[in-house]
Structure formats: structure tokens, C-alpha cells
């Protein structure tokens, strides 16, 4: 479904070229819950940005359903990010001026003109309420982000990511800023979403405990995939390998 082919990416820091991805190949299958693990600087987040068209590779390509998407015009890439991909970040990245409902509705606001929004706003509000109910925040609808706990903020971010019925959820360290209990709840939520709605999830994480909940674990070292282990929760030999990776 989502495919990275021979991706390379380097950043410049004070005129020094720092390679991050070095010919990475990865295929994400439809409906799977994939976790990407690796040491800091291994290129996990960069991979996620390239898969979601937030950034462009130096070379190589990103394909969705066999169609190259990294070189699409900006307008089409914007539309992909709005409708096809849903982002979840480690630091939640909610807009502080908006309350929980408006934060969740933001992708719909972005995807509609003012006129179209007024025509369909009731339907979108209903969906936002459903999603917030599902993530357990129906009592926090009018709260601002600063009034929420970390777990609640992340659940708001998940509801936001799901609003437009995306095909792929891209989660960058979704539990990285949460305690173990809250982190566990988030992973369970993602697992349920994956299972119930068939949303493909690509999750970058450090937390080795949560990878057990995923269908497949990919390990990255030095900007390439070094291990690709399907069915991680049932493959015990993967455990020491993961520890070594961290």
C-alpha cells in the first residue's frame, strides 16, 4: 500500500551534510500496525515525514497504492495530508487557542471552504463528538489544551487524526511523553482503531513494551532497515534484538 523505495535524505548542519536515510526500502501493507524502532538519529521520524509527504526525499520515491506521491504538486500533497494520512506527534501539537472540539475539527476546517463548511458542519461536529466519545473525552469538549493531561491531549490528537477517515495513521512516538499507564492506554486505543476500522498505522517508538501490540516491527540502523520482523508480539527471539537496538 505505502512503499518507500531507495529513500535517501540528508540534512545540513552548519554546512556539514548529515545523512539520515541511506537508500531505505520499506513496504507498509494495507491494514497492518507497523512499528518502527531504532536508536536516536537512525532516521525513524524522517522516514515518517517522508511517508506522509511532510518532507521530500533527496532521492528515491514514496508510493501510495503504486503511485508515486513524493513528487506530486503541493496542492495534491496537501490534500493527501488532509484526507489520506493522519498524524500523531509525541508532543501532541494541539493548537492552544482552540478548544478540544475545534482542535479535532481542524482537518475538516482545513479541508473545506467556508461555504462548504457551513453546509456540512453539523455532520462534522457529530463525527468529532463520536470520536471524542470513543477516546473517552466527551467530558472535555470545551476545554483548552492547557487544561488537559498529557494522555488526554494525545487522545485529542488521535481523534483529530481520525476525523477525516484517513487510510494511514502516522504516529511519531505517541507514548514518548506519557507515563506507562497512559502510554498503554494510547497503544490499546491505536490497536483497537487498527483492528476495528482497518486503518493502517505506522508508529515510530522507543518503547519496546508497546511494540508487542503491533503486527510487525521494523528496526532501523544508520538510515536503513536492518530487521523486519512480522508478528512481533508472538516472536520471542525479537525481544533481545530490540533491546540491543535501543
Amino acid at each position: 500500500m505505502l512503499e518507500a523505495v531507495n529513500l535517501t535524505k540528508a540534512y545540513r548542519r552548519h554546512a556539514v551534510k548529515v545523512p539520515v536515510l541511506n537508500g531505505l526500502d520499506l513496504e507498509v501493507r494495507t491494514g497492518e500496525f507497523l512499528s518502527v524502532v531504532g536508536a536516536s538519529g537512525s532516521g525513524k521520524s524522517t522516514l515518517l515525514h517522508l511517508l506522509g509527504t511532510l518532507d521530500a526525499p533527496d532521492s528515491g520515491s514514496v508510493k501510495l497504492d503504486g503511485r508515486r506521491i513524493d513528487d506530486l504538486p503541493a496542492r495534491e500533497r496537501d490534500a493527501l495530508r488532509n484526507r489520506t494520512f493522519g498524524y500523531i506527534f509525541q508532543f501532541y501539537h494541539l493548537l492552544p487557542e482552540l478548544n478540544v472540539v475545534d482542535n479535532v475539527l481542524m482537518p475538516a476546517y482545513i479541508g473545506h471552504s467556508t461555504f462548504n463548511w457551513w453546509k456540512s458542519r453539523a455532520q462534522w461536529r457529530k463525527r468529532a463528538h463520536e470520536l471524542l466519545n470513543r477516546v473517552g473525552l466527551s467530558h472535555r469538549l470545551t476545554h483548552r489544551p492547557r487544561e488537559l493531561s498529557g494522555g488526554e491531549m494525545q487522545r485529542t490528537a488521535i481523534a483529530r487524526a481520525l476525523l477525516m477517515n484517513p487510510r494511514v495513521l502516522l504516529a511519531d512516538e505517541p507514548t514518548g511523553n506519557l507515563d506507562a499507564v497512559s502510554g498503554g492506554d494510547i497503544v490499546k486505543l491505536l490497536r483497537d482503531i487498527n483492528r476495528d476500522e482497518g486503518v493502517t498505522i505506522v508508529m515510530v517508538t522507543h518503547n519496546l513494551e508497546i511494540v508487542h501490540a503491533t503486527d510487525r516491527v521494523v528496526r532501523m540502523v544508520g538510515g536503513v532497515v536492518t530487521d523486519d520482523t512480522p508478528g512481533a508480539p508472538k516472536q520471542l527471539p525479537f525481544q533481545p534484538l530490540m533491546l540491543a537496538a535501543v
Partner: protein
Amino acid sequence: MYKLLLCLRYLRTRYLAFICIVSVMLGVATLIVVNAVMSGFSTKLKDRLHGVLSDMVVDTDRTNGFEVVREARRPLTPEEQKQNPVIPGSRRAYSLGTRFTPDAREDYYVDGDEHVTVRTLTPEGIVREITSGPAGQYIEAITPTIDTFAVLQYRDRGAVVAKPVRLVGVEPTGRTKVGGFSEYLVRQKDAATPSFDLTPEAVQRYEWNLMQFRHEHGADAPPPPKLPVPDPLAPPPPNMQLDVGIERPKLTGAILGYGLAHVRYKDANDQLLEEQVLRPGDNVVLTTAGGDDLKPVWGTFLVTDYLRTEMSEYDSSFVYVPLDQLQRIRGMVGRATSFQLKLKDYQRDKEAVSKELRKVFPTREVMIRTWEDLQGPLLSAIDVERSILNILLFMIVGVAGFSILAIFIMIVSEKYRDIGIMKSLGASSWGVMQIFVGYGLLLGTVGAGLGTALGLWITHNINAIETFISRQTGTAVFPRDIYYFKEIPTNVDPLTVVLVTVGAILIAVLFSLLPAWRAARLHPVRALRFE
């Protein structure tokens, strides 16, 4: 949709936005107030400048006034040839006499085989010629006047006071019809037929003055003794017979500029005082020059009324006397130096009337001018002053624009991460730019709207505010004695208000473009990582 939502939210939640709004608001309010006051001054000044001037003036620089001569020739009839025979050896030339009509002095001649009629038009004749011509359809009223310089003399506490004045001889009813006369009179304000007649109180005052003089000097008091020693610096006495050819005018009324009859001064406590030095019934002597030979001539008049235009230049220089009196004093009976015209529609007809009058008076000694031509330099100065002031003041809004620029750069820096979030959710760069341009538009609109409201409120209450500030500080913010205005004049021009408001909004948008462009160019990944 998100652009509107975020603009409104940023407006409500960012205190920096408040600073932008206040700076735009103050700039706009200042511009509106200053413009209204400048326009008020300008309008009032123009009204005043127009005040005693009629719409159009036809005048001549000849001291003896207009000499409009119309000559008509026709062949002699056989009977006239018989009556005026040719004397052998000479050309046939006879004077057939002179006839006076209200419109002209008509001289008849025989010149060769022609009968010649020379009509020297009187002011009435000139008026009839103008009004019966093509220009007449545009003219509502016309009146002849004599406009000349003079010296006003009167006695104040026993001493002679002399002031240079502008002496105007008018027919009061006709002058009223062309405007700018009776509306400025103090006693006969807005009278349809004002006159130079004395009121009983003025006559009483005159008689009291006379009694006072006789009491001090005796009924047959000799003239004041001459100086025992001749003053070597004194000018030689005029070499002329003062009483010859000049009919001594009867005592009659004169209307004096308010500033001539009243003296304003500050006392030891810096309090502005006004004292009446010439009351109705007091006599003044006006000395001017004869129309033909510029010899000094004078007449004694009694103050009957005051002219108060609130233009210090006019109030301290104009003296009106009856036209026929001035004609007699100056030896120019049946003549006038200018004609004052009131047009039916000044703006529409001024060019046409000017053109038609030029056909009637083709010679260069006759000047045809509108009141704007007469006050041209002053009116231009007012307009130039206002334009320059506007440019300078618009810089205030420019300063507000720079504060918007600085604050927007700060806001964009604060919002780096939000920009990254929105881009990750599918917002386009153009959409992000629109958020911040829209934000600028919103700040400009709110600031300009509040500024307009504040400016109009201040303009409406400017005199109360001035009084309050003057009372608090103990210093007059608007000294009345400088302008002769009772209050600060204001005139709100809707077009100017719209221009100022729209200009301020445009500046706010303009100065938000750069930060908005920077926000739009922000890379989403770098924005999301921004700490």
C-alpha cells in the same frame, strides 16, 4: 474556514494584537481629528474670505473708476445737413449738446457727414449693459461700488487716532443682494434693506458729543492753536484750495469694521479685555484721495453700525459709506470703481460669465475676477498646508504599520509550531499566508474602525475637550483672540474619513505581507521541531 477561525481566535487571545489595534486606532483618530479641524478652519476661512467678497468682481485700477464709452455713428439726414451747413474752407464739425439719462451722459456731434452719439455710461448704464447681454442670464444681482484706500481719524480720550482703512462706497440694499454684507452687520444683521441711517440712540450720542465739545471749547470756539514753533520734520502744507470743487458732505452714517471700533488688549493679569472706542453716533473723519487728481479729500461720518465677519483682516480694515457720498467726496459722481456680482450658480457659471464679461469689457484696465481669484494665493496656501499636513500625519499610520510589522514578526515566531501543525494537517502555504494577511486585515479593520469612532467622537466634542484641557492646565489651548472664532471649527468630510480608514487598513495589510510570506515559506518539519 480555518483561516477565519484562527484570525478571530488570534485576535481575541493575543495581547500583542491589542497593541496593533491601539496603534492603528490612535493613528486613524489623529488623522480624522486633524483633518476635521484643518478642514473646519479651511472651510470657515474660505467662508470668511468669500464673506465680504461677492462671487465675481469687475473692477478697474483707474482711480476715477470705469469710463465705458460707446460711440454710435450714422449718416446725417438731409435735414441735419441743412441744419449743420459746411463752412467753406473747413470740415463740418458741430457739437449738438449733451443729455443726461440715468444710464449715460450722451454727447451729440456732427463729424463730417456723420452724426455721432458718444454715450459715457453711468454705473447704472453699465449694470444695464451687463444684465441685458448674454451674461445677464447667469447673474442674480449686481451692484456698483467704489473701493479705495483711506485714513480713518477719530478722537480717543482727547487724542487723535488715525488708522489706514479700506473705504468702500456701497448702495446698501444692492450690496445686500449680492451677499456678504448685511449678514455681517451687528445691528442690522440679516436685514433685507440695511441703511446708513442713524438710530435715535446714535443721534442722541452725536448730540451729546456736540454738547460736550461746546462745553469744552465754547459755542464759537476757535480752532486749536498751532504749535508755537514749526516742526522742521512736518511735511509742507498741501498746495491746494481745500474747499474748491468739493461739496461738503452732510453728516451721514458709516459702517465700521468691528476691529476698528473695538480695541482688544490684555491687562496686567493677562486677561483679554475688549473696549469699545467708537460707539454709534461718534463721529469719524475719513480722508481719501480725489478720483481725478489724487488730492486729499475727506468727509465726516457718524458711526451707525459695525461689520463683524470674524476675519480680523476685514474687521480691522473695512469701512462702508454710502456710495453717493463717496462719489461726491471723491469728485466722481456717476462713476464706480467696481461692480459686485452674485451668480445664480457660481460653480457652474463662473467661466461662462467671465467669458461674456470680457466681451463687454475687452480692455486691459478692466479686471474680471472671481472671489477665488482675488484670494487665490491664500486659498492655495491653505490647500498646500493641508496636503503637507496630511502627508506628515499619514506617517503616523506608517509608524503604526511598522509596529504591526514588528508585532507580526513576533506573532509568526510564536506560531511556528502552529504553522507546522496546520501544514501537517493539510493546510497549504497560501492558506497559511492568508491567515496572517487576514489577521492584518482584521487588526487594521478593527483598529481603523475604533479609530474612526474615536476620531469622530473627539471631533464632535472637541470644544468641550479643549475647555477641559484649558481648565486643567490653566493655558488656553485655542486662544480665541487669534482667530476671532468663538469655537474650534470642524468639518468632517465623509470622503476623507473613508480614505483615512481604508488607507489605514491597507497599510495594516501591507505590513502584514512580509511576516505572512515568511510564515507561508516555513518548512513544516522545521516548524514542528521549533522549540
